[in-house]
């Protein structure tokens, strides 16, 4: 069953000299449990694709269908709900809230809506479980400032998976990590996705990291090409 279908998505950015095409017609399909690495030179549109898939940017044309939902047809509240429930983001710079503990950071997507006490309890249990699974079971009450880069990224991974997203988008999640930590985080992502039966797209510069993924694509001239 195709959970993600992307058809002929085009995106250009305005510039003084005229629109700069970034995505020239992206076609992509993914099934639940699939993981994909996306490589390409800087400025090739890798992150832009992730942003469009994650409904952080709107495409100029084309269609995206994730579990039957086309994000381009949603208003801002529905879009926020879509991101909250369907998408999980892992950023290069983790973007953990510095004033919240590791556990609270992982719980933060859950505060986007009012939840019943039962739901909140369940979410907290899941947060603890996720952190345990990413190896941060003993760091629940620590602030991000007390964690290493790799630990922070693992916390970000756990946060991205809290609400059981259908699609996890990781933009250079290992870009700021050393080789060992990078591989650890990459493998973690793959394992968690497999366990959650979600879809994963990872943007990376590292061919070594990309090599860990069963599907590899390369951005060329605004299009996806098998790597």
């Amino acid at each position: 069953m195709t959970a993600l279908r992307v058809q002929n998505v085009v995106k250009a950015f305005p510039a003084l000299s005229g629109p700069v095409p970034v995505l020239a017609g992206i076609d992509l399909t993914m099934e639940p449990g699939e993981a994909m690495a996306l490589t390409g030179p800087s400025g090739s549109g890798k992150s832009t694709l992730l942003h469009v898939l994650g409904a952080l940017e709107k495409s100029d044309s084309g269609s995206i269908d994730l579990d039957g939902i086309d994000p381009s047809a949603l208003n801002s509240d529905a879009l926020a709900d879509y991101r909250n429930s369907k998408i999980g983001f892992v950023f290069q710079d983790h973007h953990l809230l510095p004033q919240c503990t590791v556990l609270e950071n992982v719980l933060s997507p859950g505060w986007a809506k009012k939840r019943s006490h039962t739901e909140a309890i369940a979410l907290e249990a899941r947060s603890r479980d996720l952190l345990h699974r990413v190896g941060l079971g003993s760091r629940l009450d620590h602030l991000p400032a007390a964690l290493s880069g790799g630990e922070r990224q693992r916390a970000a991974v756990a946060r991205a998976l809290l609400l059981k997203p259908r699609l996890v988008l990781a933009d250079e999640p290992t870009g700021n990590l050393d080789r060992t930590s990078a591989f650890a985080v990459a493998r973690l992502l793959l394992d968690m996705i497999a366990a959650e039966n979600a879809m994963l797209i990872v943007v990376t510069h590292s061919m070594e990291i990309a090599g860990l993924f069963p599907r590899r694509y390369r951005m060329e001239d605004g299009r996806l090409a098998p790597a």
Partner: protein
Amino acid sequence: MTSLALIRAGLTRHGVAHAAAAIGVAVGAMVLAGALLLGSSLRQSLQASALGRLGWVDRVLVAERPFRAALADGLPGRVAPVLVARASVRVTGGSVLGKITLMGVDDRYFGADGPPTGWPGDGFWINEDLQNAIGNNAARLSITVGPAGSGPPRESLLGQAEDATAPWEAPVAGCLNGLMSHFSISEGVGPSRLVVVPLAKLQERLSQPGRANALLADGAAGLDSALSGAIQAEDHGLVLRTPSSRAADLFSRSTRMSGTARSDLFRRLARSEAMAAFGREGAVTAGRLEHYYSRDRRYILVESSGLYLSSARVASVERAASKAGVPSAPVLVHLANAIAETGGNGRQIPYSVVAATRPVLGLTPPITNLGDDGIAIVDWKDSPLNDLKSNSVLEVRYYPVESGGSPREAAPARFTVKAHIKQEGMAIDPAMAPEFPGITDRAEMGQWSAPFPIDLKRVASHDETYWRDYRAAPKAYISWEAGQRLWAGRFGDATSVRIGIPEHESAESTLERLRTALKQELVASESGLVFRDTRAIALAAVANGSDFGMLYLGFSSFIIMAALALTALLFRLGLERRATEIGLLKAIGYTDSHVRNLYLAEGAVVALVGSFIGALASAIYTPALLAYLSATWPDPSLGALLRFSLDPLAMALGGLSAFVAGVVAIIVSMRDLVKMQPLALLRGVTRLGESVGPARSRFGWLAAILTALAGAILAAGSPFLPPGEPRSGGFFTAGLLFLAAGLMALNALLKQVLQWPLLASSSWPLFRLAARNAARRPARSLVTAGLLASASFLLVAVEAFRREAHPPTDADALAVWAEMEVPVLVDPRTTEGRTALLDAIERTWRDDPAEASRRRSSASALLDRISLIPLRLAGEGEAGCLNLTRPDQPRVVAAPAGSLTVADLPVAARMGGDTKPLPALLDEVAPGAEAMVAGEASALTWILKKAPGDSLCINSSEDAVRVAAALHDGPFPSELLMGESAFLRMFPQTEGWRVVLVRAAPTDIPEVLALLRTAWADKGAEVVPLVDRVNKYLAVENSYLGTFQALGGLGLILGTAGLAIVLLRAVWERRGELALLAALGYRPGRITLLVLLESAALLLAGLGTGTIAALLAVIPHGGVSRSSLPGLALTLLACLVTGLLAGVLSAAMAQRARVIEALRQDA
């Protein structure tokens, strides 16, 4: 790049941020300079008004008694004689307008402008101020004229007890304009209500032909010496009569009367003298009378136009006589109701003059060795006392000298007969007693028209015979000392001084020598015959008046501090954005001081620009402030007075002060930032340890609790402090302690908030996240919340100082104040005084006898229920808060001893060392001891600049009094209170009572007002409830408080603006976080709600802390008045809404940025 280039680059590149900081300095400069400009403008306005009231006049002479108007002639420069009287005007509707100056002037008054067109015309000339007060172009006026200080003292036995002056009605001839149209002879500023008539007309109206009682001069050189040389004895109120002038007087007056000249003459002349002068059938000529006087009555008689000569005057005359080498003898006469034998068959002689004098050959009878209790009886034919033996005891029954209106016989004086005097020589000189119209000009005792009760049935035929033959020649003599003991008093010590004329010299020569000597001995200042430098006094009054500049600086202190705090905050925010720049400079080797100086230089430029703009802006701000002051000042006439005047010095000073303060604020703001390590700065860390982790707050809570406890103790104890400023200060300080405790608690809470869990079990996770966000920068949050807390505290706490007098509830409380231009001469507490009141009521209804009777009965019943307290009044200068200048001669009132109680005089502070009840302390002042006064605390402090224990001069003689006590909301908001005995010693010439206080039940007040307004309408009475009078002055304080609150409100808005900027800045700093939340699926509304909750938390913490602290303090003090609640609530609500809107705006702005860009910039 040089340092200068760095500075220039910094200013250019970060111009927007610097502009915001400059605005903070500009606001501070505007307000600072504005306060100084306000003070300067007010001073200028008051000065202009004070000088405007003087016109061309630099110096004024106001005498106690009228003098020759011709005294003005021959004095250097421009000198105008004026006859001045107080007056009141009855306006349409029957109300009375008081405090009007009526002046009789000649053309010299108008100065170089000359008289107005149409002068003198027929009627009153009024000025614009009076026209405005009357309104509606009144065509006719009815003016009641006060006394002009002539004739016998009206409270004396021989004075006119009640003024028979009818209102003077005349058309309005015109409106004065020109230099002298606002002239006022009394001190002060503001409008002067002036009525001007030709001098001759007023002289005629007041029976003062050729007289004036004031001189207006332009201060030409040599004026004082010229005046000194021009003053004659007559100008001091002395009447010098030689034998020839006495004779000529008698004849000239006689020929003016109706009837034959001869009968007129003999009506005045004692038969004995007529016989001696003219013989039985001789020609009746002035020459023959003069010859007789020159031979048998060879003296110069020195008398007073006011009947009595003061002790100082007597001493001066006697010294002059001694200098002239001639003998003198003072004489004090009094009319005895009876001289009666105590034992035996009680023989007596009624209505006889008794003279007290010294035995001086040729001037007085040979009465020697009388001692203090001896009396010499004149043996006259048919006198029932002729055969009294020596050492017989006689009683002299008499009315006291000071009897006015309701004479009651004093305790009889007992004397022992020491001598019998033959009826010859000076013993039978009728001129021993001064002339008194109605008595001495009557041929028979039965024709007497006396201002005191006499029982003519007691007058026997032999008494009439004596009167026919000897007129007022005394029938008994006592020693001078005995006479002083019985009849000397505040009016004077003598009725004449006799000056001997040497045999070898003519009377005119002796008179000449006497006049020369009198010139040297008579002290001009005792008669008020000295020029006062009115212009200098007016300028000094303004200069020493309320310093509005400093006052408004105090009011504006909060807004200035808020502006400076905002400046520091904004500059700091700007620097934090340049943290990497600072770090780089330090990393490449710039020292801390070099870095500091670079940014200090930028800050100095910012402060300079801001202070310059602010100083200029004060030229707009100050007129607005002036307009507010005019609109809220209780006295509407102030509005017409105030004018904005540009004072570059004040603006420069304000700007400079703001510049210095701004630079200091900037130095403080960047102090810790510059010290940070370069690496931390390069990483963008801008605070020494951001509070993101748990922090110890235990001691913070303890400090807060202890401080709150201290506040509670002070709040509980403050009601026991003395009323007024000590008590209010106690509550205010308690409030400050509560505020400090609140902020300490807030600080501790901010630290604790970071520990609030955000777990599933936590309620309101979004609110907790918002609180935690607000607590991340505790210093910034505390400053913002603290600004809001301080402003709201001030706004609410100041309400505690608002005061309003409430109508009395007690039947015995002082309830009504009546003040008159024409004094009441009969004590209204006496039967005669009461009768006078009731008669006045009945006269009002004379056309309807039935109604008149009914009204009289009703008034009588009312008088039974109330009590009247007559007060003496002296001085013109308002010693109350409505006066913006310092009075030179403040108003002083005096109540009869024992008429005021302790409850009437609530004391705020007392002079140390005396625990006597205040009324007794004021009443019981020994002769020669310093008089004590009490005054309203605020007036003493702010207007007179005195405190209990200080002394001050209150009259032109510069007699000092001591402030015994400061009152709190007492019944005398614009005058000093003194005991009556001390008052009469200090102001002996005061006639009657111009103020009456009334004790009445609240239900009787309307009737009392109506009664007194009707009864005393012809005295120009303004009758008001006392509570209204007191509230008029309390309104001044409330006006100041309103200004303080308005400026505090501005400060609050400024604080809210600061909060808005802080929020905007904070949101901008955290745009990455907000973008993250958007990426995590937070709806835009929820993100906005989060930001809103952050700002609401700070707003509510700040406003709530300040408001609660203030309420805790003021509630025991009486709370907040209901009338001010809406305004307060509105201000606080406006700040809350503004702050919340700022939160909404900042969230919306932050969410406008693309999420990805925001995330990237935050990376």
